[in-house]
């Protein structure tokens, strides 16, 4: 059972109404947006998939993400995962806004709707379960290389959650980023290649990579080893869990909490991603000496177990 204790005080009717409100916004988005734009003078952008514009798709995905968060808080894991499935379907096809790629990768890793592969060339997602999305994006397509630096730790964690067999491939590929010659079957201009390698190197030095010890990985930007000691990863996890506890405490203290209208994300998606990856990589032994930092962190750990229990199997998408 995964239940956020701070959410136990929510009135059930208010909670159901809130979930229904978000669902109605999603289903009726096109109509509501048009009706409540009555009188606007500027021309609306061209409509695309399912009648939705590129501008609206992330907004709908945000509604679905909020609905998923509420469901997860009240032990409605299946419903929450279904919301994330839908968010992927809304965001994914014909993706143009590359800033949503990390969000997509995390949701894909949680739902197992698409695999996530990261290499020195870029990021690839492959659909599974006869669903999900498929796309490939080179790093250069993410715009300024700072986006790559910021996104890399999130993408790598999402990719690692697909299990041990993919990890060496991932790191040998990323290891090229540190080398002088970035071998690539997709030749890039020398200047661009240098920029990508520099961005990946910078991304690999993120403190978030310290948490990899909990995934059984002893990683430095040049080497990949099977690790048997989590090292400093425990401290990183504790700091993240403490931060999450503080966030929930802050939010439950304001008037909107009881209206089931949290003013920020209730789920720490990175923390959840880490615990899901730990479960998929079967390194929970490293948590034996790391009790949750509080009841909210305990909830995230339980939620990770629920999610892996429901969407656990690894689907080999490489034939």
């Amino acid at each position: 059972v995964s239940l956020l204790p701070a959410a136990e005080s929510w009135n059930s009717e208010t909670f159901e109404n809130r979930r229904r409100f978000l669902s109605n916004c999603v289903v009726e988005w096109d109509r509501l947006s048009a009706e409540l734009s009555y009188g606007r003078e500027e021309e609306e952008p061209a409509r695309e998939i399912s009648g939705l514009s590129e501008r609206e798709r992330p907004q709908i995905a945000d509604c679905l993400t909020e609905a998923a968060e509420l469901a997860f808080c009240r032990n409605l894991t299946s419903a929450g995962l279904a919301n994330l499935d839908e968010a992927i379907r809304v965001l994914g096809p014909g993706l143009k806004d590359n800033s949503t790629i990390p969000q997509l990768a995390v949701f894909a890793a949680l739902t197992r709707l698409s695999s996530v592969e990261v290499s020195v060339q870029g990021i690839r997602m492959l659909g599974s379960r006869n669903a999900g999305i498929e796309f490939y994006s080179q790093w250069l397509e993410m715009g300024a290389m700072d986006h790559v630096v910021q996104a890399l730790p999130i993408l790598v964690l999402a990719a690692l959650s697909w299990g041990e067999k993919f990890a060496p491939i991932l790191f040998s590929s990323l290891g090229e980023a540190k080398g002088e010659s970035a071998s690539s079957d997709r030749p890039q201009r020398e200047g661009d290649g240098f920029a990508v390698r520099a961005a990946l190197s910078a991304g690999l030095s993120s403190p978030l990579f310290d948490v990899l010890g909990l995934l059984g990985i002893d990683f430095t930007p040049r080497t990949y080893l099977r690790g048997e000691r989590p090292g400093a990863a425990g401290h990183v996890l504790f700091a993240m869990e403490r931060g999450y506890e503080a966030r929930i405490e802050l939010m439950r203290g304001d008037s909107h909490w009881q209206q089931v209208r949290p003013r920020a994300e209730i789920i720490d998606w990175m923390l959840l991603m880490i615990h899901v990856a730990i479960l998929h990589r079967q390194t929970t032994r490293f948590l034996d000496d790391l009790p949750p930092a509080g009841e909210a962190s305990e909830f995230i750990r339980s939620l990770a177990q629920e999610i892996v229990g429901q969407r656990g199997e690894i689907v080999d998408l490489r034939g």
Partner: protein
Amino acid sequence: MLIHWCLKGIPEIPGWFSDQEAMRALSEGIPSNWLRYYGGVPLAASLPLAQRALSWSALDNHVNNYASVAQTTPYISLSAGVVVPRTLGGVSVRPAWRTALDFATRGGSSSGFVFRCWTIVSPKPSPSLLHVADEVRDLNIFRRFWIFHVEGEIAAKILIPFRQIEWVQKYNPQLQRVSIGPGGKLVETNRDFEHPRKISNLIEVLS
């Protein structure tokens, strides 16, 4: 000064705000709770009182501690939408209509009304100036108003004049649009509405 379009969501509460009050707003304006509370005070006496009710602390309480001033706040919350950073990267855009509909239907719990109106805002704080709204969603200016930033609020004062309200629509808890009053219209437009282009700084040639 800028002219800003906004939406205003008001829940339907029998005996407090229903179809009749929604229609009346198109001819009388949308009052603040301060104006409702002191409605019995003669205009000549209430005008100076209303101006004195406006202050930094009153705005702070309105935005950050609404429950403590709900009965008498001189400010009126409007929705203009907002952009907020997403923890996984990129930004989220919260459209104004979603926030207005949320407040109007109390999160899908009741029927409610959404008004479209315009107001004048300044790129500088003006919490005590009667005729200028404060764009509290702008954290560059209003740094104390981060708690409910996601609501994308613009705070108007004392009264939204009826000539600045373009229309009102009513929604039920299932977010279906329903007619207001006996006329059966889904969009009640305001025949006394004055378009803001009349006071914009775009000037046509003489002809």
